[in-house]
């Protein structure tokens, strides 16, 4: 199977959350993800970026069915998994794992590292007894930690080490696909690079496919083959990563990229920034038409009436903006 074999595909994915606003209150609907379509090839890393609350985590959790999609289709390795019930998903759960943003909150504080790492093996009945322990030790070694740490507790480790434990746990069942939900955001710069290198090594070794969610745009560029940009529940641009940075087409992507602070004083001194005004509107009542129009300096009349569809503008480059059509 080559790189062009599609492992995961979404078609018009929608996830809405209903908010209960008290007894007599009207029901509010959070349109967290709206009509999002993309695919990820085997062995590929697809990056997902966008501001806080734009729906990245929701996409990540929905594609592996931790959330039930409201509408749309999810195909994993050729199989339509959209309607699968929890029981039917069990066999597939082994193949799709997730690593969480916060290495402090995501590990059970009362379990030893060995138990944390080997729990998925136990759940899926893949090993038991002394074999469990042995495999836990192997997993720790694989993520660059000492096998002797097996009897220690999470609080004894630093953020970077805890993130390694989270990765070891995700790897335990030998998955094909891992959703990495901001795995490095909580870590120091020098430790971020350690974890990114580890994820890259494991990808090569085990042929893993990643959906890599982040808001550090320079790290995402480094690790991803292609990158999707989200704004208020919508995918607004999708392109090969260096293409996206060289030729960003959506006004939001441009603003996002120009906001990255460059660690180079000479460049920083002469940089021209696109400063976005205001804040992201609420996903409960997103603006009609193009959701970005309230902050877009190019907005046309049509932008408040019609939602721009994704159009192909290059071999691997798609964008949703009326300026492009």
């Amino acid at each position, binding site marked *: 199977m080559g790189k062009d074999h599609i492992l995961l595909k979404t078609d018009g994915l929608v996830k809405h959350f209903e908010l209960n606003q008290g007894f007599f209150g009207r029901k509010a609907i959070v349109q967290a993800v709206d009509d999002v379509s993309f695919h990820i090839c085997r062995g590929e890393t697809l990056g997902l970026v966008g501001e806080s609350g734009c729906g990245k985590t929701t996409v990540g959790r929905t594609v592996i069915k931790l959330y039930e999609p409201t509408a749309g289709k999810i195909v994993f390795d050729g199989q339509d998994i959209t309607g699968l019930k929890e029981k039917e998903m069990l066999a597939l759960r082994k193949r799709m794992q997730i690593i969480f943003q916060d290495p402090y909150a995501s590990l059970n504080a009362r379990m030893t590292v060995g138990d944390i790492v080997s729990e998925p093996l136990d759940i899926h009945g893949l090993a038991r007894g002394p074999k469990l322990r042995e495999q836990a030790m192997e997993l720790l070694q694989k993520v660059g930690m000492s096998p002797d740490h097996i009897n220690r507790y999470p609080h004894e480790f630093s953020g970077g080490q805890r993130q390694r434990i989270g990765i070891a746990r995700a790897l335990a069942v030998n998955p094909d696909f891992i959703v990495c939900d901001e795995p490095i955001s909580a870590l*120091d*710069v*020098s*430790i*971020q690079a350690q974890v990114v290198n580890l994820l890259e090594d494991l990808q090569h070794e085990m042929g893993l496919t990643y959906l890599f969610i982040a808001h550090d745009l320079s790290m995402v560029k480094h690790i991803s083959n292609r990158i999707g940009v989200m704004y208020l529940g919508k995918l607004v641009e999708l392109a090969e990563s260096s293409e996206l940075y060289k030729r960003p087409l959506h006004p939001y992507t441009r603003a996002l990229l120009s906001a990255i602070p*460059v*660690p*180079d004083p000479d460049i920083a001194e002469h940089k021209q*920034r696109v400063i976005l005004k205001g804040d*992201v509107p609420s996903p409960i009542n997103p603006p009609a038409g193009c959701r970005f129009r309230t902050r877009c300096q190019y907005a046309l009349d049509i932008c408040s009436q019609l939602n721009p569809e994704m159009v192909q503008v290059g071999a691997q480059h798609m964008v949703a903006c009326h300026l492009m059509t």
Partner: protein
Amino acid sequence: MKNILEVKNLSTSFFTHAGEVKAVKDISFNVGIGEAIGIVGESGSGKSVTSLSIMNLLSFPGKVINGSVCFAGTELTNLKEKKMQLVRGNEIGMIFQDPMTSLNPVYTVGNQIMESLLRHQKLNRGEARKKAIEMLSLVGIPGPENRLNQYPHEFSGGMRQRVMIAMALCCKPKLLIADEPTTALDVTIQAQIIELLKDLKDKINTSIILITHDLGVVAELCSRVIVMYAGSVVEKGTTRDVFYNPRHPYTWGLLKSIPIVNADHKERLIPIDGQPPDLLNTPPGCPFCPRCDHAMQICAQTQPPLSQLGEQHLAACWLLHPGAPRVERGR
């Protein structure tokens, strides 16, 4: 340039059950009038403790054990709390990392800004209200008249941070200490705040101490940088000295571990191996020694002194000793 702040040989420790945590060790630096300096380092390197020591805000078991902090000619380390309160908020403004914990959720934003104005300045309520509106629009909050009556939770993260800046600035402080003011924010909001701080520096000549672990933010805003590791200053100089001619292996490591956005093909990242040290029972010698690729025998025994490398450029590393082998920084 005259200095608004001079910190000399400042050391701060926490006396905990387990022993003395030496959070800040013998650090010295100046801030010029209208100048922005950056303090960078990993979490736990002593950045926040440095700013709390300056502001006299350390609480038990923390204590400044040595050194002096001179602000506009006044020594702050032994200033009475009454007098210190006048300095805080009035002459030195401070922005904390988490705006939600530093705004009071039960008062409107307007009330909080006005209260600070009424406490420090001779204004009546009407004047204070006018001033509060002026401050909110200065920090780029649209429709400030209406916003005044809202509560902090009705503001987004970026707007709360701007309110914090408005509060820190409302008495026109001579010095603003911003402790990771953008770490919790999205890049687009971060860009707004950086531009705002730049403006304040240029327009009202505010001096700024910017504490961050983001080297990009420093490059955009600061004329000089202090690099801290395990409570010590390991390198300091102009921003250009530190970015273009870094001399300490830790600074090399920091700069190398960030990916280059404009790179055409991807190169493997170069992390700093290992973990930052535990500040309890620190071994003698250079604190960076266990993680340093260039460590020599002396490094494990004696802490290196700061060597003067240029007019403003200093670094603390044995490699800078005339007798040491010559080592080039990779890449």
